[in-house]
């Protein structure tokens, strides 16, 4: 028997290794960093993210060796799709840390493990976009989720936080079960879990393979909070510490989409006629449920939870479009980029307004904010307009791109025009609840007060406003970036 050395180029997973390794390093350092120097963790974890960011940039357009076990397909791929998503995750993590600094201190949750869990969860997210094997997707999903369960419960013994963690854990575990069952069925149908093998075997696999695909869609649907698998979202978002809510409303959602797009476009492009209608129906349902139920919310975290469901719907329009047009994938990437900044920015303001744990979060608490904090109110108004999709904002550019991709995908047979019209009409509905925040801030009198105006938070707001402005006024360069990302991704070749 000849022993073959597998060609494992560790440089491919180096950004993930940095993030995981940094988390472990922080664990060790806990023995050496004294109690009164807790602030160090913040800075150290930021440094780790910057290192990973630099390393990801270095891998941009990587064309070296692969990460392939003997006689198989690559377990992990690093194309610009993965790199682009990794940058999104790292920026999300960085902004979360900026927001966390004094939030945790204020509510007496300033524990070192928070930062480690954040880093571990981030590494899971990063793997979601890189995984080229269903087993690895599952591991990444768990690596993403388990730290988030703990982080949701970080504010124990406050019951709402415990409830949030429990609910998230139970439903998350259930959805993972569904997902892994889907993998098992797919394996049964195609004889492999590697995406390229699934690609080869799926079209002749009959109902077994279809059931597998459907269950994987359901499992990921839970993660991205698509209706009708969104039930956990409002309670979990409301009860979790607001910084954690911000982190998962972007990170976990983008993570779910990262895997969804990777699986569908690498392994399942040949059966797009099967999954595109399913995704389209889910998208329509998600848009309607998210936007309509958001109208009735009086708590801003719950409102943003439903809003995040609604935005999952817009991204799913792009996913559905990606079945027949490469524009769909690139529109999804652009939308997620715009959503990252807008949503993190909105949460930054929410965090600044939270005076006690779970208090200061009612919409009515925003009354009269414009008179007391004109600049912060202006930023919030801008985020709300961006979430509505009014130009010139990043949110508008994102919707513009998504609608464009869907119209373009409609030209060859499978029409998505009805979905676009639902997307447009629900955007109008969403205007009502987003503008309510603006109306409360600007057009009513009240005692709205910001409790937290330190520089890390201000920096986060400045970054997110600036990015939303740039994506709103100068979207062209970023449209091109996402388009080139798709050209350099492994899937586009398969999805064609």
């Amino acid at each position, binding site marked *: 028997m000849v022993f073959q050395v597998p060609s494992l180029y560790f440089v491919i997973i180096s950004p993930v290794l940095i993030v995981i390794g940094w988390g472990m390093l922080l664990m060790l350092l806990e023995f050496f960093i004294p109690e009164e120097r807790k602030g160090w963790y913040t800075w150290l974890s930021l440094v780790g993210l910057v290192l990973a960011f630099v390393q990801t940039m270095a891998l941009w357009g990587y064309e070296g060796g692969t990460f392939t076990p003997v006689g198989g397909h690559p377990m992990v791929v690093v194309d610009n799709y993965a790199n682009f998503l990794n940058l999104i995750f790292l920026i999300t993590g960085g902004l979360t840390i900026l927001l966390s600094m004094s939030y945790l201190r204020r509510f007496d949750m300033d524990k070192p493990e928070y930062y480690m869990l954040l880093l571990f969860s981030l590494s899971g997210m990063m793997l979601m976009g890189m995984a080229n094997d269903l087993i690895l997707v599952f591991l990444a999903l768990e690596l993403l989720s388990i730290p988030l369960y703990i982080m949701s419960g970080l504010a124990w013994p406050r019951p709402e936080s415990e409830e949030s963690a429990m609910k998230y854990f139970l439903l998350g575990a259930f959805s993972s079960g569904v997902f892994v069952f889907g993998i098992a069925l797919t394996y049964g149908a195609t004889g492999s879990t590697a995406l390229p093998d699934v690609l080869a075997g799926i079209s002749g696999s009959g109902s077994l393979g279809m059931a597998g695909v459907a269950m994987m869609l359901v499992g990921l649907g839970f993660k991205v909070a698509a209706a009708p698998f969104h039930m956990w979202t409002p309670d979990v978002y409301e009860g979790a510490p607001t910084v954690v809510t911000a982190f998962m409303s972007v990170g976990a959602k983008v993570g779910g989409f990262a895997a969804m797009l990777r699986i569908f476009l690498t392994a399942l492009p040949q059966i797009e006629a099967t999954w595109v209608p399913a995704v389209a129906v889910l998208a329509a349902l998600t848009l309607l449920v998210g936007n309509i139920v958001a109208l009735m919310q009086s708590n801003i975290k719950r409102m943003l939870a439903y809003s995040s469901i609604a935005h999952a719907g817009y991204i799913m329009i792009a996913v559905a479009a990606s079945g027949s047009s490469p524009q769909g994938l690139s529109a999804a990437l652009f939308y997620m980029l715009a959503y990252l900044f807008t949503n993190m920015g909105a949460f930054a303001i929410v965090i600044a307004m939270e005076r006690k744990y779970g208090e200061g979060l009612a919409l009515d608490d925003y009354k009269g904010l414009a008179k007391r904090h004109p600049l912060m109110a202006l930023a919030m108004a801008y985020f709300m307009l961006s979430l509505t999709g009014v130009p010139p904002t990043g949110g508008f550019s994102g919707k513009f791109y998504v609608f464009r991709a869907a119209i373009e995908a409609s030209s060859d047979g499978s029409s998505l025009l009805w979905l676009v019209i639902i997307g*447009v009409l629900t955007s109008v509905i969403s205007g009502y609840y987003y503008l309510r925040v603006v109306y409360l801030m600007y057009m009513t009198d009240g005692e709205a007060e910001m409790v937290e105006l330190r520089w890390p938070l201000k920096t986060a707001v400045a970054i997110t406003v600036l990015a939303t402005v740039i994506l709103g006024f100068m979207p062209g360069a970023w449209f091109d970036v996402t388009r080139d990302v798709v050209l350099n991704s492994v899937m586009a070749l398969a999805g064609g």
Partner: protein
Amino acid sequence: MLTLVTFFPVLGAVIILLLKLFKKESDLLVKQLAVGTAIVTFGLSIALLTQFNPALGGLQLENKADWIPSWGISYYLGIDGLSILMVLLTTFISMLAIASSWTAIKEQVMQYYIFMLLLEAGMLGVFLAQDLFLFYIFWEFTLIPMYFLIGIWGGKNRIYASIKFFLYTMAGSLLMLLAILYMGITNETFSLPELIAGRSAFAAVAVQNTLFLGFAIAFAIKVPVFPFHSWLPDAHTEAPTAGSIILAGVLLKMGTYGFIRFNLPLFPEAAYHYAPMIAVLAIIGIIYGAIVSFPQKDVKKLVAYSSISHLGFVMLGIFSLNEAGLQGAILQGVNHGLSTGALFFLVGIIYEQRHTRMMSDFGGLWKAMPVFAVLSLIVTLSSMGLPGLNGFVGEFTILLGSMGASSLGSHSWIYTAFATTGVILAAVYLLWMFQNVFMGPLDKEENKKLRDINGGELAIMLSFLLFIFWIGIAPAAYFGLMDSTVAKLVADLLSAAPLVLH
């Protein structure tokens, strides 16, 4: 040059914002800066007029730069006979509206003027943009400052009115966005001249009709064409005086301008196809607006409903699809801006003193404020369409156009006949209002103390009157500005017409 005109108000807004950042702001300084900016912008638009060559039919003084090249989107401003009057109207009305707020706005003065200036820039952009993507951005952008103007400085029902205004208009515009996207994808460009040149790509009847409707609904909501008018009375009644002046004077014209600029040249066959239907809606609007104006007790609401009636004339003129109709429509747009803007301004003057606009609270004001009454009489007569004043010229030309409109079939005189009743009804409700407010005994104690118009207000009114008389007596110069552009547009329409009409 066009870029300078469009963004000069933004410059003013930025300077005001900088004052705030350096804590140097005072209300007086802000007002001076805002009025100064608006005056300079008007001056710039006059300078634009001197460079404008009315003999050329096409776009001129263009500014063009790549914006999103891979999608065929460019920053593209241009001006022609269709837009020059609109640009002048915008800078003129904005200047007067900003000046008229001097004493009326006491709260959050800085934000108010910033929003006013941003609104002016947005409106100018709408009239100058020649790229559909750019147009759409300006078009949607105007919603934001207007939303705040109504919502913050409006009357007691302002919240409802502002959100209704925003969502109603946004719903229409998003359908337009889809139509824009469709054309942008089929032709790989968003530039209007290129799309018109390559319109065969979306000229198939079903496609063209759908796209036409996508645009038409957005514009019809803005105009507003019956039955899309329900936001207008709310928005007008609740908006602050200057907001109403701009809303009536300019924002509604964005809708009629949109029809002329986009619907006619891009979808000529569809325009012929839908012309009779839209003309019927226009006439319903004329008569409905007039009839609903009559029983109004609130003067401002009366003027608001009268706008629906007046804009019906403009729509009828546009869909006559001939030179007289289009020229009359464009000029009547300007006229309505002047007359109705002036009326809202006058209503604002008494509202500021009496905090009521109910006709029953007035009566006999002629004795208390004679100068004010004379000015009101002239403006009312202009709005009625009295010969010698501006309203007459526009309405007459439109009726002339609709009389011989081939787009309305062989019995087009029926449309004209019905529309003419609108002129008579206008006389009824406007004179009724005038009589109630100014005639009769001066029997209310509070009304005896009303001060007459002051110097600043007189200056603003005289500016309005200058144009009211000028257009009324010598309209030739105004028609001269648009002659060749309209002639070219009509020629293009006619070349598409044989396919439809026979």
